[in-house]
């Protein structure tokens, strides 16, 4: 194992002082699972990043990649950590062609900056992430395959990524895709790198297709006495052709967390369209509410007001969870949202957790936050909810857990994957990062 002094000399040789931090406070600030790295490197080009990675790879050093650092903790406990590589100095918008509805960005671009830049031309990228306001980066969002309420209208982030450039652990610089919206030349490396949490390579640049901002939007808030009714209306809104862009059901805790009144179940719907069509959508949904015997809906028309609310919904779960807190991402079929809410609350009551749950009832992703006193019970909660979701063909990702609990959970993604899938995933890791330089142990099944 290389001495820290030598390590520092070598890293200085690669990227100079601008590219390196070794102050203990800085190192501790990027600690992962209780481990502080020995150095932080900040490459400013792909070539520099390649040189750092190649160096680490050939010296048996372990590297974690860091974007905004907002959620670097996602994943199984890191086996070992020597170097944190941050993308903060690779933060340029490399090409923006509004006329082509296309943008090229480096990994370290902050989502909030990108959003502001695109908005100047009345455009947006439908990639949503909690932590937008806290400095989450586009690279981090793609590496963790984030999504939010508007996935219902726009699909997952992967549908928007049309080109990717990456650096492998051995320093190979390569790419897939391109910058045109239709492209079938070569394999789909964009899909390969999405959601990899920094375990296959450094994503250093991405091309995306874009959309025009919607002309007008309306948000409807409907209160219910039970989950079933709220989720039922959500699905009905789709099936009757009102074409909602977002459908989110919130329990009491989640409603309070995003600043809505204290109700057993709240359904948020958003529609976006031209004026006349929007009016019709609102009218149809109001009709559905009447039929369902629900009061309201309350309407939010002000664009700022709507924007703020949906931002809170998207950021739900990104709260400083002090001490004994957990955050789970739950995947179910859309028509299981109500069952999830019921099941999770029954479990939480039995095991004395205080939970809040927000479910995107149109597309099947839900976020649950909870706090607990008794670690054994929290463990049981995670395990039982995970096996419940898996039995129904879904999954649970325990995205945030205190280290002590994380170490006991086993795999934070549960046991949804088959041996066949795992064999392929292990095979991919072994081909692209054979030395296990990048985030060893971080990924599913300890990949």
């Amino acid at each position, binding site marked *: 194992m290389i001495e820290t002094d030598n390590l520092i000399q070598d890293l200085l040789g690669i990227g100079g002082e601008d590219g390196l931090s070794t102050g203990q406070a800085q190192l501790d600030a990027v600690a992962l699972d209780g481990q502080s790295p020995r150095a932080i490197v900040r490459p400013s080009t792909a070539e520099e990043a390649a040189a750092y990675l190649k160096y680490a790879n050939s010296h048996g050093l372990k590297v974690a990649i860091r974007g905004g650092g907002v959620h670097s903790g996602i994943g199984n406990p890191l086996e070992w950590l020597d170097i944190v590589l941050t993308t903060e100095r690779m933060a340029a918008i490399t090409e923006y062609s509004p006329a*082509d509805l296309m943008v090229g960005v480096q990994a370290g671009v902050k989502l909030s900056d990108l959003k502001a830049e695109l908005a100047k031309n009345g455009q947006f990228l439908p990639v949503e992430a909690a932590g937008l306001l806290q400095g989450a980066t586009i690279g981090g969002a793609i590496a963790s395959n984030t999504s939010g309420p508007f996935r219902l209208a726009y699909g997952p982030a992967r549908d928007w990524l049309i080109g990717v450039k990456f650096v492998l652990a051995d320093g*190979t610089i390569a*790419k897939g895709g391109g*910058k*045109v919206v*239709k492209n*079938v030349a070569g394999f789909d490396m964009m899909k390969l790198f999405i959601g990899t949490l920094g375990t296959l390579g450094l994503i250093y640049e991405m091309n995306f297709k874009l959309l025009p*901002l919607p002309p007008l939007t309306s948000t409807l808030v409907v209160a219910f006495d039970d989950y079933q009714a709220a989720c039922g209306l959500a699905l009905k809104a789709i099936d009757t052709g009102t074409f909602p862009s977002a459908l989110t059901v919130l329990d009491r805790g989640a409603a309070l967390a995003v600043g809505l009144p204290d109700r057993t179940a709240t359904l948020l719907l958003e529609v976006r369209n031209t004026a006349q069509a929007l009016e019709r959508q609102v009218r149809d949904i109001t009709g559905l509410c009447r039929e369902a015997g629900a009061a309201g809906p309350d309407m939010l028309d002000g664009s700022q007001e709507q924007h703020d609310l949906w931002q809170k919904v998207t950021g739900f779960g990104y709260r400083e969870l002090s001490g004994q807190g957990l955050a789970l991402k739950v*995947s179910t079929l859309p028509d299981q949202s109500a069952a999830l809410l019921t099941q999770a609350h029954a479990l939480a009551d039995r095991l004395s957790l205080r939970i809040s749950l927000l479910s995107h009832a149109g597309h099947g992703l839900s976020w649950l936050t909870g706090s607990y006193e008794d670690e054994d019970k929290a463990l049981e909660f995670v395990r039982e909810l995970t096996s419940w979701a898996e039995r129904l063909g*879904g999954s649970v990702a325990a995205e945030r857990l205190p280290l002590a609990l994380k170490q006991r959970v086993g795999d934070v993604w549960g046991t949804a994957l088959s041996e066949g899938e795992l064999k392929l995933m292990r095979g991919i890791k072994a081909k692209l990062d054979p030395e296990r330089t990048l985030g060893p142990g971080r990924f599913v099944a300890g990949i």
Partner: protein
Amino acid sequence: MDKQVLVAELLKIFGPDGLLYAPEDVLVYEYDFSLDKNLPEAVVFPSNTGQLAVLLKLAAENNIPVTPRGAGTGLSGGAIAVRGGIVVAMARLKKLMKLDVANRYAVVQPGHVNLELSTEISPSGYFFAPDPASQKASTIGGNLALNAGGPHCLAYGTTTNHILGLEMVLPGGEVVRTGSAAPDRPGYDLTGFIVGSEGTLGIVTEATVKIMKKPEAVSTFLALFEDVGAASDAVSAIIGAGIVPAALEMMDQLTIRMVEEALQAGYPPEAGAVLLIEVDGLKESLDELTGTIVKICRDNGAFDVKSATTEEARTKLWAGRKGAAGAFGRVAPNFYLHDGVVPRSKLPEVLRRIGEIGVEYDLVIANLFHAGDGNLHPNIMFDARVPGVMPRVIEAGEKILHLCVEVGGTISGEHGIGTEKQEYMSWIFTEEDMATMRKVKDVFNPAEIINPWKVFPTKKSCGEISLKMRLLKALPNMDEAWI
């Protein structure tokens, strides 16, 4: 393996009515809609996954190449058994296994024909969005292997956006399921990587696909221009204004003339170019959207706009667009269809330069294409019997593709690389890019048992490439097909 032994083994797996091996019987499986062909030794027709697992075990143990085949409508040679061996025809695996309307997905076998899926689920009010021109014949398996596009992929995205999960058999016979109807299955996105891999990773035996609520209303209209330059200015302006219609197709004068002579679909022969535009959604939104697009077209030189006011007129317009491929036969006995993509702001420039290439090589080039996506289909018309024409056709085609790359585009938007464009891959990808792709491929199909010698360059000499071009033949007439 000796052919007799092979046939005996295959008989054990597939029975006499699941197997063809006489040369005259396998002859129709030697080609697809591309320019290549090669005779397989046998063609098998599995009716379940289990049979395929046994076959792939046999194949791996004896190093026999196996090539999956859907409807054989592929334009890049993907379904051709270039190394001989066994072709697996998916024709009997064509059931709709499950339809879950509440959760908006269906499970289908790969041999299911694209259009039949939408027709079958139509009563539910939902549809399968990818609509390649060949949708009356091409299969879900072929569509997902090539990540097929279609006119409406402009708004709804290409096939990959609509595939949620797969069942696949690997060389050696292992059966793996990837993805799921529930979102974000943990781990690497295997499904996303397999889609578009041109059948070179494994044989897909089942697909879980997204279905979408049908739009309530549709408005279809034609914008008429003096020339393709003005029409492509209009396309750039529509996209530049941030409008993404459901479909935005272009036809040049030559195509219009051929289509009208053949089909009388209602295209105006006086136009130098037309845009076929469709918007869909709630009926309240259509007037405004149509109005905005029409204004942009007029601002960019459209001299007339014709709306399809009846369902009949709409069907006729689309039939004309779809029938264009068949109509080409009227002008020349052969055509070579290209599939480049360019950034949409570059359309005016690129179309002008394609015209110049046609003049330079003394070739007639017709254009009908997915303009909204920037996905060009320049169509070189010729008569292969004319001595010396082939090298010109090939060179002009290469020049066009080169041009696409030069302006920031790519060499295939939807038809795939297969055997047709494998030697062009190095125009857009470095050795490192391709080596990385191959490494991942090796995880699935290391010995190239399944679909060998495709997608990546084989370092064939130019001589061999032109040899392949000599096999060039006319596309079979396909009524109601568009490209």
